[in-house]
Each structure stands twice: as structure tokens, then as C-alpha cells.
């Protein structure tokens, strides 16, 4: 059953081939058997899952089921889940039981999905290797000595290892797409504002966006359809109807103008990655798409701009973790100052502290104009680059990452090299655009991600293009050995 896609599982449930309880039990058993090798889950909720599965079976029996009813899934541990620990991968929230559900969580629950648990992640979503988690690193099912990427590394590893058909992720600078690329799955980062951020623990509010991580674009279309939508609780969510993503999947791509970014495909790009991306582009051409060259002249400024904006926002967002109302509190504080200092020093680990420090500095009096304001101006330039490029093409394609999965510990001492993992993904977040990463041909047995970027609210188009590639290729059907 774990080999099937959501669309297939849904048909099986409807036909009565198996029940949601059976399906749920099956995936719970797989997690039990296999996750010790990956550490992709922080918390499992088997009892809750079986209860939801029973309710789903009743809905199916009553003829009240949608495409997602009874399908097992998991949430990245950044989404607040009522009555269930929501740790955000941090010691700070190790014992935090959320008193409410995030909007995305309640939407998927209403669709009848069954939550198996909460997946591992870089602490507060800060990292590109899933090594900063308080709950230990996640391993890549393709090679357990390598990282799965981050920050949604647990989500990616769990889907790649067929431990669960779909998991939610969040993407601030590439946190859905980069781990999707490194583990050979499909990960979609929607337009900023397409999914509600309510109940998603904030890292960088102007960049954070929730999205689905699945095996196929078709599955991603189903999940996004249920996740997306305006939320009166999130002022930055978009007040526009949600497209029927599944209905648009099959459209032919003949005549589609595919923009290849000149600045990304230059000589420095790893030859293996380049060849793999070329193969994906060739597949689109084979189906009648037209390739055009586009330019993003300011894209090289995206990493530095990001590493001002994101830390600045996080330095403020993480202030609420002060040991006063919830989360980690130090033992026997001497006074208020001591309570703050020790609770935060003990609760956050070094990468989070580093970003709080950078962000605090960037917002300080006398530096604000030089850093934060400048970075915001660069954002405008990058958004403008994309606007210009989309005048000449329908979608933009690029590698998702500069390389394949790297060994655990390799970049631990070198934050800048870690930050460069996101060189192809960050510009998209800065411009608030949607982008999807799907598997391209593997290099040396390791997955490679092919990124398709769209203009605002063009998720339907991205899923359509990704699906057209997937129905003609088997790059997304590769299974890591032993899973």
C-alpha cells in the first residue's frame, strides 16, 4: 500500500479494497520498523490517528468522503496541533502542548486526512540540513550518512522512505524545495499568502509559506487544494478563490515558454546537476515546450538580502520565547534578567542564537538603513527582475540546489557554505512567488531537484508542468533501497 500515490489510495478506499484504519496501521507499522534509521518523526500520535481513521471510514461508508478522506499524513512540527506537542525542533518548546490547531492543520483534518505525527525539522526552521534539530539529525533514506536537507528534512525523508504519503512543510528560503530535491520527492512552495500562516510558528513572517511535500505533483495538487485559501486570522493571506489544481494537471505543455535563467546555468554549476536539469528541460521540449533565456540580474544579491531580512524578522518573532508564559524556563531564576538570559540561552541552540544576533544587529539604531532597508530594496529589485522575466516566459526553470545531498557534519562549521545551499531557492521567497521542486535524473545514485518557478498564484501551472514531466518519466518513482 505504501507504494501507491494518494490518488491511488483514495480510489482503493472508495472501492473498499482496504479501510483507512488498515491504511493508517500499515503506515504506523512502517514508521515503527524503519524510522529508527531516519529519525524523521519527533512525535507519533497513533491513538489520535486511529481515531481519525475510524471517523474517516465512517465518512467513506456514509458516502461523505472527499479525495483526501482517510489518507494518512503528517505535519512538520512547526504547525500547532491541538493537544499535541509542537516543538518546532527546539528544546525551547520540547514540552509545549499547543492549545489550538493551525489553520492548515484544521483544513486538512476537515478534509478527512489522518495525522500520524509530527515530523523532525531544523530548530525553528533555521537550517538546510536538518542537523540543528534538538531531537537529533534526520538521515537521508538514499544514504543514511547524508543529510536530507532542511529545514523540512523530516517531512522529506518520511515521504521519500514511503513512511507516509504526504507531509506538510514550510519554506522560508527553500525549506520545502531543497529537502525535496535532496530526497527525490515533490515539494511545492506556494505564493506568499496562498496558505494561511495562522498557527505556523513564525520564523520570518514576510517569507514563510506552508506547502505540501508528496511523491507526485498530482498528490501535491490534491493537498494544496485543501490547504490553500483565505484565512480571516491571517491578514497577509490572499483573498482570492483557490484554483482547481487537479483539474488543470493534464493540460499539454506544447507552446509553453520555458525560461532558463542565464545567471543560474553558467559554467560554475556542478556538471552532474547541470546535465540532470538539462534532461528535464529536454523532456519539456520533447512535449512541445519552447525554451527561452531569461535574466535575473539581481538574483546574486538574494542570499545576502535574505540573511538580513530573515534574521531581522526572526530576532523579533522569537522574542515571545522568554520563559514567562510557555516553553523552557530555567531553574530558580534569581531575577527577571536571569530568567530571560538563562531560559533563552538554554532553550535555543547555536544556529538560532546566531540568527537572533545577526537580526538584532541589523535592526539596531544606526544600522537599520544600511542593512534592513537596503535588503528590502534588493527584494524590490529581485521582484522586478522576475516581473520582467515573466513577460518573456510562462514558467522559469532552474536547479533546486547547487549539489546533491552532502554528508552529515560536512557543513556544520561553515554557516556560509550552508547558507549557499539556498542560492537557487531564496530569490523566489524574496519575490513571494510559487515554485515546485520535482525529481530530475539522479547523479551518482543521489536525487537531484528540478525547480519550476511561476508568477504569482500560478500554482496550477506549476503542478501541470510538473505532472506532464512525471507522467512521461520515472525519475520520481525511484525508491531508496531498504525502504
Amino acid at each position, binding site marked *: 500500500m505504501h507504494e501507491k500515490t494518494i490518488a491511488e489510495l483514495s480510489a482503493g478506499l472508495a472501492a473498499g479494497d482496504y479501510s483507512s484504519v488498515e491504511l493508517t496501521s500499515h503506515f504506523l507499522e512502517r514508521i515503527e520498523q524503519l524510522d529508527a534509521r531516519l529519525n524523521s518523526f519527533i512525535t507519533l500520535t497513533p491513538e489520535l490517528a486511529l481515531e481519525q481513521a475510524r471517523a474517516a471510514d465512517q465518512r467513506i461508508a456514509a458516502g461523505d468522503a472527499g479525495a483526501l478522506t482517510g489518507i494518512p499524513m503528517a505535519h512538520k512540527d512547526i504547525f500547532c496541533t491541538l493537544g499535541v506537542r509542537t516543538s518546532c525542533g527546539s528544546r525551547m518548546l520540547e514540552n509545549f502542548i499547543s492549545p489550538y490547531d493551525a489553520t492548515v492543520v484544521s483544513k486538512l483534518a476537515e478534509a478527512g486526512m489522518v495525522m500520524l505525527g509530527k515530523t523532525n525539522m531544523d530548530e525553528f526552521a533555521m537550517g538546510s540540513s536538518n542537523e540543528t534539530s534538538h531531537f537529533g539529525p534526520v538521515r537521508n533514506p538514499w544514504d543514511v550518512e547524508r543529510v536530507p536537507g532542511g529545514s523540512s528534512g523530516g517531512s522529506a525523508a518520511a515521504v521519500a522512505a514511503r513512511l507516509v504519503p504526504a507531509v506538510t512543510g514550510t519554506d522560508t528560503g527553500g525549506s520545502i524545495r531543497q529537502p525535496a530535491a535532496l530526497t527525490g520527492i515533490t515539494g511545492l512552495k506556494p505564493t506568499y499568502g496562498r496558505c494561511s500562516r495562522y498557527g505556523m510558528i513564525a520564523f520570518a513572517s514576510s517569507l514563510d509559506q506552508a506547502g505540501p511535500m508528496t511523491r507526485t505533483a498530482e498528490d501535491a495538487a490534491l493537498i494544496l487544494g485543501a490547504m490553500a485559501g483565505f484565512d480571516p486570522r491571517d*491578514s*497577509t493571506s490572499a483573498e482570492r478563490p483557490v484554483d482547481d489544481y487537479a483539474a488543470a494537471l493534464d493540460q499539454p505543455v506544447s507552446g509553453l515558454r520555458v525560461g532558463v535563467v542565464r545567471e543560474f546555468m553558467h559554467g560554475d554549476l556542478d556538471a552532474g546537476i547541470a546535465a540532470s536539469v538539462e534532461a528535464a528541460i529536454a523532456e519539456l521540449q520533447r512535449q512541445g515546450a519552447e525554451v527561452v533565456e531569461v535574466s535575473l540580474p539581481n538574483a546574486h544579491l538574494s542570499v545576502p538580502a535574505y540573511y538580513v531580512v530573515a534574521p531581522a524578522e526572526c530576532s523579533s518573532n522569537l522574542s515571545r520565547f522568554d520563559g514567562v508564559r510557555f*516553553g523552557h524556563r530555567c531553574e530558580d531564576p534569581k531575577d527577571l534578567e536571569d530568567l530571560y538570559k538563562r531560559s533563552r540561552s538554554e532553550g535555543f541552540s547555536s544556529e538560532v542564537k546566531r540568527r537572533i544576533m545577526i537580526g538584532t544587529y541589523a535592526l539596531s539604531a544606526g544600522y537599520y538603513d544600511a542593512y534592513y532597508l537596503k535588503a528590502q530594496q534588493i527584494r524590490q529589485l529581485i521582484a522586478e527582475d522576475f516581473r520582467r522575466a515573466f513577460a518573456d516566459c510562462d514558467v522559469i526553470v532552474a536547479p533546486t540546489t547547487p549539489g546533491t545531498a552532502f554528508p552529515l557534519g560536512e557543513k556544520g562549521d561553515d554557516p556560509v557554505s550552508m547558507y549557499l545551499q539556498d542560492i537557487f531557492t531564496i530569490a523566489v521567497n524574496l519575490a513571494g512567488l510559487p515554485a515546485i521542486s520535482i525529481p530530475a535524473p539522479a547523479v551518482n545514485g543521489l536525487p537531484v531537484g528540478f525547480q519550476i518557478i511561476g508568477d504569482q498564484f500560478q500554482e496550477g501551472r506549476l503542478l501541470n508542468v510538473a505532472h506532464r514531466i512525471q507522467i512521461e518519466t520515472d525519475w520520481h518513482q525511484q525508491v531508496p533501497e531498504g525502504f
Partner: protein
Amino acid sequence: MQWETVIGLEIHTQLATHSKIFSGSSTAFGAEPNTQANLVDLGMPGVLPVLNRKAVEYAVRFGRAIDAHVAERSVFARKNYFYPDLPKGYQISQFELPIVGKGCVEIVLEDGEVKTVGVTRAHLEEDAGKSLHEDFHGMTGIDLNRAGTPLLEIVSEPDMRSAREAIAYARKIHQIVTYLGICDGNMQEGSFRCDANVSVRPKGQAEFGTRAELKNINSFRFLERAINYEVERQIELIEDGGKVVQETRLYDANRDETRSMRSKEEANDYRYFPDPDLLPVVIDQAFMDAVSADMPELPDARRTRFQEAFGLSAYDANGLTATRATADYFEAVSAATGDAKLAANWVMGELAAALNKEGLEIERSPVDAAALAGLLLRIRDNTISGKIAKQVFEAMWSGQGSADELIEAKGLKQITDSGAIEALVDEVLAANPEQVENYRNADPAKRPKMIGFFVGQVMKKSQGKANPQQVNELLRGKLD
């Protein structure tokens, strides 16, 4: 050396919205601690603010009232600092782009001179919670009921030159916001809080002196005292060769002094930046038009109208429009009785005296407008005299019943039956033959004065209930 005082005020007005500025919690005062704090007010992980439209409307209303520029686009910013009663570790406020820009108000000084005071800006922000230091045995309790209550912070130019001017300005702003219905103006409950920036400089000097910011002032009286204390302190300090340092000072009403709270060196760097959780506030023409259509009458306009429509004196019109509640009270009495002058006399006279005696605001008057109107109607229809009415009013004040009930129960109804009055007159004349004799022998010019004796006797006999006019007429008929 001659010194000049320079004062600017920062006034925090709590906006009278039912719910908080960024959450649906109630803003009602006085609930059990933390019963009016929801997930958003508690700053739980993952929650987001959603702006209360009413708070924006109220801010725009204020902007219109002081002829200020209302920003087509204003931006909420985060003011970052750690404090236990600030749940998110930042306060959502407005910094570079406030909703209300430059405006001004006019104040009337004691000598009648009119002075214009500039308003630099007014911006929307959320209030913090409260730290409770009593009853927690060395620990601090946190009450987040107030966290997220909408505030409009109104910042003046440093245009005031004395404590008196500062009070006049503060009262004017108080009058405006209560007239607008955007703030209940209650200083004890903290709905209207003044911080004063005070400095002194040698007379004639152009540059400002170093200022101190005075906080914790919860009445106009204390505002005056705090400023006067601070001015003296600064002058003494400078004359003794010292220097004023820029700092925040707390006013202690019990000791009538200001004390240093924190100096600029230890001041926070608030690291303001636009709040990415909130969209810029865009005020379009339709919004402005809707607010304009909804503007209540302002004090100056109401005062003029009272003079013109009711023929009241400038003094009465001023007194009756001092607060919106007084003006509303007066207008209700006036409308119910159809006699504006009678209503004005009673509201400014008997009622004001009674309120003043007990230190009550008109909103808490035991005799409400309808009740007072009920009494005045009985004067109008001659059921009772003005004198008896004062007696009835006292009984009404102490809660003994309505005017009609009291008049009935105490038998205060005026005697207008001429037969009954004539009988009393006859009794009085019969009992005082000497005075009758004297009257009749007196110079007619002196008689009007002398008749007072008989009137008094008749009124006394009637326990004040006889219609004085009728008594007069009957007496004159029988004596002359």
C-alpha cells in the same frame, strides 16, 4: 535669571472599542485577571494579529476633529523590548508612518487669550498588560486583560509654557476624545494617561533645555503638580551649577515629587521595523467620507449652537458644553421640558452644586436627565414653586422617589384654589390687626415692602404650598 518652561505632552487615550486592536477579546475594565486574554493576547506561538477596523475609524475621527492630515497609507511597526507584561516581546505600534499627522487645537487661557497648540502626530498602538507586585510573595503576577487594548497616542508639539497651559491642552484633548465618543476619558481606570516632557531654558534662549519625561500621572491636578515640582527641581539644579539629564521620571502623588526611573544611557534600542504580519493601513476617500458622515458635534460647535438656538449666555453655553455628558444631559432636560433656560439654570445651579458637593461626575448623578425633567415640568405647570422644587430635588437626590411621587407623598402640591387661599389670607389678617392697621395708615409707596410680612405669614400657614402670586393678589385686594 528668568526661566521659561517648555512642555510637550504625550497623551495615551484608550479607544472605546468593544474588542482589542488585534484580537477579538473584550476590552471591558475590571474583569478577573487573564479572563480577557485569548491566544493572540497571550502571544502564543503561531498566532497573528488582525486589525480592528473600529480602532482605525476612531483614529481617523480624531484626525478630522483636529484638522490633521490623515495618512492615506500608514504602517504598523514593532517596538521590540522585553518585559513580562509584553507577551510577544514587542509592542505593535506605528513609527515612521502614523495614521494621523500634523494638526492643532485651540486652548483658552485664563486671561481669555486663545492659544494654538500643535499636535505633531497621533498613532495607533496596542497597550501592554499589567504586572502585579502585591500579594505574590516576592514574585510578580501578570494580568494580560489589558494587553492589546487599542491606544491612540497623541503627541503635542513643545508649545506649552506653563503647567496651566498644559492642563488646558490636556483638558481640551480630553474634551475632544470624549465628545468624539472614541475614549471614555476615565483617568482613574487609565483610559486617558498623560506623560509630560518638561524642560526649562533662560528666557530669550532659542534652544530647548534638556527634558525629563514625567510618567504615572493619573489626574489633571497631579499633572499640574508634577510639572510644577519638576520645573522647580530643574531650575534649582541648574542654578546650583548642576545639569539636567535626559531621563524618565515617575510622579509620586503621595510625596508630591518626581523620581528618576531610567536615564537615556540605559534606554532601550527598540529596533523598530514594519510589522510583516500586518498590511499597511490604506484609507481611501470612501472610508474618509464614512467617518465624516459619522462625526459627532464637537464642543466648539455645540457651544455656539447652544448660544444661538437656546439664547444662552456665553458663560452658560461654555459650562454646559464642558463635557459631552453635561451637554447631553442638558439637551435631554431641555427637550423634555421645552424650556432651555429653566433647564440651563437647574443643570448649572442645583445639579452642579450637588454633584460638586459629592465629587460626582454627571454620568453618575443619582438624578438623571429624565428625572430632573420630570421635576422641572411640575414647575412649568405650576404644580409646585421653584422653592418647593429645591426641596423635592434634595429628596430625589437621596433616592426617595420621582418628582411626582414625592410631591404626592409629601402633599407638596401648590394650593391654587382661591377659596382655600382666601381663607388663609383672612386668618392671617384676623390674627394681625395691628399690622393691618399700620399698613393701611402707611404711605402707599411703602406698602409693597410691607405686604411681604403678610405674604410670608400666609406662605408659612400653607407650608409653602400656596401660589405666591395668588396670595399677593388676594392680600392687595383685601388691604388696599
